[in-house]
């Protein structure tokens, strides 16, 4: 059951469908209705008003439903979009669903299905929104992971790290992406060069042989039993990641100078270059099997 009024934006170039859809929602009660005649118009409304849900037609002049889904997803990711599909728009509907639309309703069945679908999407969205509001009040988050040498786990951890950064609002979207890349490079170094002891030189000579050797070593002792240990501490001022492998380590002073443009095209040292570029501080321990990455806050941060 909904407990408060929701604002619904109806986007359709047909005045008849705009009136029909808004009429069905008004009859049900509990909705404030806003109208737009195409995607561009809808984006203007989204910038001005606090919209809870968008119901959009697909075939429109100016900006169609598919373009609207893409644009709104980028700028208003918490606003769910429901497609209103008619005969002839099935293909574009499938594309829009893959691009981020939350659901769809067939125009011929509006009276039977519209309210149920709108309620369902709003209920789910309210939960997401509440969760998001809660997470935005997070002030500190410590976590530790122990990973085996699994590339999928590395990628998943990077996504999780980016999500946690968004929660503490430490940095903007671009910096979150860059921190994710820096941490991923550190994790890959720990896995390939630390635990599996596969050298960058081999990657430079033969990338396929590099991957093949890494794959083999994932099954061989002592490499297969080595783990990547990750500790993180996030606050609104700073994100600190400590990544340690269980390999033999290396002498960090032997790394090629990452600031030398001549080294830019070499696979060796690329990860360190990205880490140094994207983080405010990177420190290796003496044995070279642990790196600490630090990113300091760049946004003012909203008060709690």
């Amino acid at each position, binding site marked *: 059951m909904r407990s408060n009024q929701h604002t619904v934006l109806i986007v359709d170039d047909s005045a008849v469908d705009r009136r029909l859809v808004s009429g069905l929602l008004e*009859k049900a009660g509990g909705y404030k209705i806003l109208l737009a005649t195409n995607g561009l118009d809808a984006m203007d409304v989204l910038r001005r008003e606090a919209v809870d849900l968008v119901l959009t037609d697909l075939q429109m*002049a100016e900006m169609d439903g598919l373009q609207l889904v893409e644009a709104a997803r980028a700028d208003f990711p918490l606003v769910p979009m429901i497609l209103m599909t008619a005969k*002839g728009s099935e293909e574009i509907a499938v594309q829009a669903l893959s691009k981020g639309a939350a659901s769809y309703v067939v125009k011929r069945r509006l*009276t039977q299905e519209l309210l149920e679908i709108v309620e369902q999407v709003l209920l789910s969205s309210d939960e997401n929104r509440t969760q998001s509001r809660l997470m935005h009040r997070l002030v500190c988050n410590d976590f530790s992971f122990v990973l085996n040498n699994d590339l999928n786990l590395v990628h998943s951890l990077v996504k999780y790290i980016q999500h946690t950064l968004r929660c503490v609002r430490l940095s903007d979207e671009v910096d979150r992406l860059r921190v994710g890349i820096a941490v991923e490079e550190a994790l890959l170094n720990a896995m390939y060069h630390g635990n599996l002891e596969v050298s960058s030189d081999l990657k430079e000579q033969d990338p396929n042989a590099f991957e093949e050797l890494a794959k083999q070593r994932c099954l061989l002792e002592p490499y297969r039993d080595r783990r990547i240990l990750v500790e993180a501490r996030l606050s609104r001022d700073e994100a600190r990641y400590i990544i340690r492998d269980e390999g033999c380590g290396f002498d960090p002073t032997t790394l090629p100078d990452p600031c030398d443009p001549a080294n830019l095209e070499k696979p060796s040292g690329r990860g360190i270059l990205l880490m140094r570029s994207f983080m405010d501080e990177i420190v290796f321990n003496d044995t070279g099997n642990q790196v600490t990455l630090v990113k300091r806050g760049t946004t003012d941060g909203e008060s709690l």
Partner: protein
Amino acid sequence: MTGLNWDQALSAVGGDRSLLAEVLQAFLEEVPVLRQRMVSGVSVGDWLAVAKATHTLQASLRLFEGQPLELAQALESSCKRGTSDESRDRFAKFAACLENVVGEVEAYLRGT
């Protein structure tokens, strides 16, 4: 007259007669604009413009289903294929049908 299916139209608005009247009023306001776009498109062979206007009109005709909607869908299809002779022929049939629909809708609204 086309003999519009008013039971179907009422069902399409959840049985709400006042909503049906509002939707039909929107239809009457929308038709002249869309019809003009279609006429202009046909005169210069801009079949994409005709297809778009026809597509938008289908929102209204979906209320009644039946022949008007079928003629509109057929016109949109031929316009998208860009077949000029077929599209002109279909436009003529649809335009005549649309006149009848408008007349019947106006009569319905006068009686409510």
